[in-house]
């Protein structure tokens, strides 16, 4: 054997290429899926979620109330017209949508989620109002059957969080770690990035609440990790800002993957939010409980 002149190149060129066998594939995937589901199951029984679960909780609903038709009714009520509009309309500059929403510090929006329980003839539904004040903080009010169920205040600047349960007259207050404070669960922007970074299908023009929109759709089976999900994004032709996001997917709930439909709409991009919105204003007769 010749002594290599460049030992680094010698080592680099001999990087081991290992082909994983079927045994290890099966063992890793089986055990990993089991571990993942066990973790999800354990989290689903925790009543008071951690900061990281705020958005998860807004997606994964906890109510047995509205019927499956709720999502359809919502769609009809807001008047989405998939076939409306003229072919002469100006189009959305899709390349600029992400850049635009990244530059906007504040946004207010609503999330409606309906999770079906196949075989149990029931559904769970929630509606949430989200106030995203950028670096100042975030607030979420979640309603179950129209009744305020929980309020979450993530005061990033102050590094403090409050969760309030009006029905129980309880609240918890805890300090945010640096990681929690800087980790922002930002569902609309994440979805928009997911959709527009992939090979989406144009849905054409439409009208939502009198606003001319153009839509795109991604079949998530085309995305990495796709689970036959469908995401649709409707963007205002004039402002180039998202108006409505629709998601149909399987989500983890009570230890199992369940069909979930989610609508994110009523966006108010770049809206001025009074800092008083982020004040918990906890009534004096509420009891403080330890965070779990």
């Amino acid at each position, binding site marked *: 054997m010749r*002594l290599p002149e460049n030992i680094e190149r010698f080592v680099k060129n001999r*990087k081991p290429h290992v*082909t994983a066998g079927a045994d290890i594939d099966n063992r890793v*995937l089986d055990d990993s899926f089991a571990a*993942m589901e066990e973790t999800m199951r354990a989290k689903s029984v925790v009543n008071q979620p951690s900061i990281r679960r705020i958005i998860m909780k807004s997606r994964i609903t906890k109510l047995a109330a509205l019927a499956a038709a709720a999502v359809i009714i919502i769609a009809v009520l807001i008047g989405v017209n998939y076939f409306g509009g003229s072919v002469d309309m100006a189009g959305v500059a899709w390349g600029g949508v992400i850049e635009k929403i990244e530059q906007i510090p504040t946004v207010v929006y609503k999330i409606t989620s309906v999770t079906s329980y196949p075989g149990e003839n029931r559904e769970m539904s929630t509606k949430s109002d989200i106030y995203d004040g950028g670096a100042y903080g975030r607030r979420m009010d979640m309603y179950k059957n129209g009744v305020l169920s929980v309020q979450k205040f993530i005061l990033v600047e102050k590094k403090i969080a409050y969760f309030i349960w009006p029905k129980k007259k309880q609240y918890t207050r805890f300090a945010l770690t640096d990681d929690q404070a800087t980790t922002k669960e930002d569902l609309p922007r994440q979805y928009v990035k997911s959709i527009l970074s992939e090979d989406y299908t144009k849905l054409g023009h439409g009208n939502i609440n009198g606003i001319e929109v153009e839509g795109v759709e991604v079949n998530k089976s085309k995305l990495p990790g796709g689970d036959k999900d469908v995401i649709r994004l409707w963007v205002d032709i004039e402002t180039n800002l998202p108006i409505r996001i629709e998601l149909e997917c399987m989500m983890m709930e009570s230890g199992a993957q369940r069909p979930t439909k989610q609508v994110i709409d009523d966006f108010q991009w770049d809206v001025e939010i009074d800092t008083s919105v982020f004040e918990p204003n906890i009534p004096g007769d509420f009891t403080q409980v330890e965070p779990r």
Partner: protein
Amino acid sequence: MLEDKILVFRFNRGSREALRRIYEKYKDDLLGLAVALSNDVSLAEDVVHDVFVSFAQSVGTFNLTGSLKSYLSTCVANRARDRNRSMNRTDSTLEAADETSSDVIGPERSAICNEESKQLINLLSKLPYDQCEVIVLHLHHGLKFRRIAKLQSVSINTIQSRYRYGLDKLRCMLDGEVKT
């Protein structure tokens, strides 16, 4: 990178398919790393298994701040070091390497694809573990010395020394092989 972010995003939402894609995307590379560090295919499989099970347990809370590949490589290196501490590496001879990575095993077992790699793995196994780790992580997996220093809890200067000494020893071993 963006694909990894989407995969992690979907993994955090409980997508099995995302976890499967992450595994399939990086499994061979991570197995290669584990084999290079342990000189044992079975042990390497255990290391990768443990890393992915642990990763799966982070569902819902996993926060990707850098490269997913670097993160998983670091996890494999950490796990391999833990495993190596409890193993006797003195019998990791060329014969042992040939035995563990034999081509006669079936497709159900993992296999190293070429003889030159086996030769290198055998040589690396004769280095002090810390030196072997620096060389493999830096030259095969592109980790910067700063990151490896953090991994080994030593200064960058120490890492650079370990890298240099390790390469010198490899050169000496190769020189010995050439002379014989």
